[in-house]
């Protein structure tokens, strides 16, 4: 059987495949999870991913940008899979989700630092019915008899002895920290894996334009001003994915920069280049410097037998 290369595009997903006699590589882009941000296209070492702005229809909300993976350029390395903040891309080999780039330490994994303390779920707390803007948190209460009760509301039953059970779909979590505020204090602790800055210059925004807000997947990261005429940004919730930037119609109205990415330690040219594109050459150099000073410290430690500060 000759090599088959397949690309399929449906409303639900885009799939790319290399089908060989003994191996099968598959990339699946889940369009429901994809928010049309810029992360994968910046991280892709083969420049195989394009972010296509969708035409806006007058009177309708802006549509998120479309992510398109080019079959001829894609080598199924899985870096998009690793970096997607929303876990929308999955690369498999023979159906297994084993990423050689991670295994061989050619690319780091993002650190999704999410701590859940269900015991802190205060009795009687009345929160929102939707603790996670992209519905990754499943809250269940367990009766003292050990029976689960699923609740659509997060108000804890008054009965004493009920335990909260919180399941977080960490794989798809962009670490926006919204749950820290929607859940009782101390239940959730989330550290962002991308740090950065976002600012909107309202004077440059077209009158009445809310395109960025329309596409932002994180409730509260962008919000309308009190006079409901301008969009503002909230750094606490923004994950710096750039979905807003991808649709902004005016240059310089929305400024977004990423400064660091929290990742497992790695020594790889691919990562350095990805980081350079995701952040900036300066930020990448900073990380390199930190790394080398760390290594220098390690080597001193090895020689003198103790840490020297």
């Amino acid at each position, binding site marked *: *059987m*000759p*090599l*088959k290369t397949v690309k399929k595009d449906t409303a639900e997903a885009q799939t790319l495949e*290399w089908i*060989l*006699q*003994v*191996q099968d590589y598959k990339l699946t882009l889940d369009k429901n999870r994809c928010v049309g941000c810029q992360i994968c296209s910046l991280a892709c*070492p*083969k420049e195989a991913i394009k972010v296509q702005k969708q035409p806006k229809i007058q009177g309708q909300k802006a549509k998120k940008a479309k992510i398109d993976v080019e079959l001829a350029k894609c*080598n199924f*390395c899985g*870096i998009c899979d690793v970096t997607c903040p929303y876990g929308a891309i999955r690369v498999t080999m023979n159906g297994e989700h084993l990423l*050689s*780039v991670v*295994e*061989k*330490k*050619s*690319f780091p994994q993002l650190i999704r630092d999410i701590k859940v303390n269900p015991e802190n779920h205060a009795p009687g707390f009345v929160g929102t019915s939707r603790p996670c803007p992209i519905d990754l948190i499943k809250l269940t209460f367990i009766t003292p008899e050990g029976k689960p009760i699923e609740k659509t509301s997060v108000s804890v039953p008054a009965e004493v002895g009920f335990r909260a059970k919180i399941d977080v779909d960490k794989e798809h979590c962009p670490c926006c920290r919204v749950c820290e505020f929607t859940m009782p204090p101390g239940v959730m602790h989330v550290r962002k894996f991308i740090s950065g800055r976002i600012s909107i210059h309202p004077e440059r925004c077209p009158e009445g334009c809310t395109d960025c807000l329309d596409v932002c997947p994180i409730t509260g990261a962008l919000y309308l001003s009190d006079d409901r005429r301008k969009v503002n940004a909230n750094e606490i919730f923004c994950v710096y994915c750039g979905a807003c930037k991808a649709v902004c119609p005016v240059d310089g109205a929305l400024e977004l920069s990423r400064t660091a990415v929290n990742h497992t330690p790695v*020594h*790889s*040219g*691919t*990562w350095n*280049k990805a980081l350079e594109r995701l952040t900036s050459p300066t930020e990448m150099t900073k990380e390199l410097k930190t790394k080398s000073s760390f290594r220098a410290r390690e080597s001193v430690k090895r020689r003198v037998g103790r840490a020297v500060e």
Partner: protein
Amino acid sequence: MPRKAAQKDTKAGPRKGRHIAKKSSPKDEGPRIGVFVCECGSNISSVINTVEIASYAKKLSNVVYATNTNYPCSSQGQKEIVKAIKDEKLNRVVVAGCSPRLYEPVFQRCVSQADLNPWLFEMANIREFSSYCHKNDPKEATRKAKDIVKMAVAKARLLEPLKSIEMPITKKAMVIGGGIAGINAALDLADMGFKVYMVEKTETIGGYMALLDKTFPTLDCSICIEGPKMVDVGRHPNIEIISYADVLKVEGSVGNFRVRVRKNPRYVIAANCTGCGECREACPIEYPNYADMYLGVRKAISAPFGQAVPLTHTINKDYCIECYKCVDACGARQAINFDQKPEEVDINVGAIIVSIGYDMYNPKDMEWTGYGKFANVFTALEFERLILAAGPTGGKVVRASDGQKPHSIAFIQCVGSRDINKYEYCSSFCCMYTLKHAVMLKEKYREGIDVYVFYNDMRSNFKGYEEFFNRAQKSGVKFIRVKLDKRCIAEDPQTQNLTVTGETEDGKPVQANVEMVVLANAAIPQVGADKLAELLGIPVGKDGFFIECQPKIRPTDTENPGIFLAGACQGLKDIPYSVAHGSAAAAQAAAVLGKDKWLVEPLVARVNEDLCSGCRICESACGYHAIMVEKVGKRDVAKVAEGLCRGCGVCSSACPMDAITMPNYSDVQIVAQIKAVSTEAAKT
């Protein structure tokens, strides 16, 4: 081969000989012409009255001697010619016989023995031009032969003595293409003591043979018998392998070629790479491997297969993500250089052997085969990688659809070949490799597999092949003879099993339900063969393979002296034939390289610098870059590179100033021939 001037455009009418060549005759005598009319057994004399021709010739002016003789080309016949030259003091000789293509050099050597300049010999072809084509009209044939002889005599009167041009010889050779034919050619030449450059397009030498499992009819392991030869090439002190390289330009002529080769970047420094494979282990990226016919994968830094020569790894930048894990793994060897650039080198050689092999036709566009559509339809080379123990499946013959061993296989012969709509020729080795596959399956799985061969003719000539066919028949392979245009393959979408249907020679339908199909797809000319042919100045046939000089007796020479053909690029060949062809080409090349000087026939264009206006029309007319306008003093004048000139006469015809003449094909000589045949023809 004597180079013949192209036929002058006679429509333009005879040119005025403005610069009439001096009548050159040795020893200041007028021409004394001897005419020898060959009977050629009965080839000529059964149609043409050779006695009449001889007596006619005798009456022509300047002819002092004429005779008819049975075989002037025989040693006895040649002795007679030498004797006549001496006795009759002949200073011109005409032989009326066969084609000068075959016998002119023989007679030129013959007249030289009598101390006559070989270019004072002229041949009149009364066999191909008269006796052969006018068999049924002896009278007219004889009359035409008279005209031919008369023209030859008219030209002979004006012949001038010429001296061969001596060219020095670079005692090195280049072999383009490192398949089994090229490997043998290179090893033979290197063993004879000549330096050989082996230029290979891919990363490794070995060609298709290195990808095969077994070889027919002995079922030897292919790489086991080719591997040692590949290693010998790699280690030979006289051979330099230039792999992963392209030929960009070929200049010069026999004895002195200059070939520009581009070494493509591997991003690995060959001198530092030990082929240890540690970089390969560290590399995270895989891509479909051509050497496995894309059934399996290889790493972005790797060699195509374990026995590759050279074993220098190559980074495929189309897939590499530049993580530099390979650089870490390589460590102190420092063999990896991501900044490597293509490098162009000029190599001077005296002879070139072209052995670029063949390619395989992709039967995707033959819809009846279902190839590319049905998962369990394979090409023969894919099957070869499947059955190979070192292949991607570890030698397990399994279906692509479910990974299961098939219980029945059909082999379909002549897919693309012997098809006037695709490739008219027979691919020559498919019958035998199909027998090989069939026998291997039967001997491996015995009763566990049904093997069908849908064929039209089984071509098992050559040593041991017919016996192998018998072995296949005895082993229980079912041979089904079908018409080539009535075959079809259909798939059951549920099981993905296949149904092969056909029609026997007497019109009966035949059918086999099988779990796998293997197509014997056509072998086709190598991609880029036509481009290389253009660079080398060698002709390509309508089938796309290079044309040899003479199909029977000069199968390795090309029309361009010093360039030889080896292996399947000249026409499809199996391994033993390619090996022999490679060695034959090496012997031919050695015959050139072994000489101290190369003698070029003096039939090259001559420029009368006084007449030349430097208009450069000749430059663009010349197909061999043999004539260039240069500055001579203040004037632009055309100069001929004698080594390159093929004596075709195109420049001479194109020259508006009549400044270019072709020795022994001058306007004066040709006009004399035309006059001879047109003015007095009716009288005799």
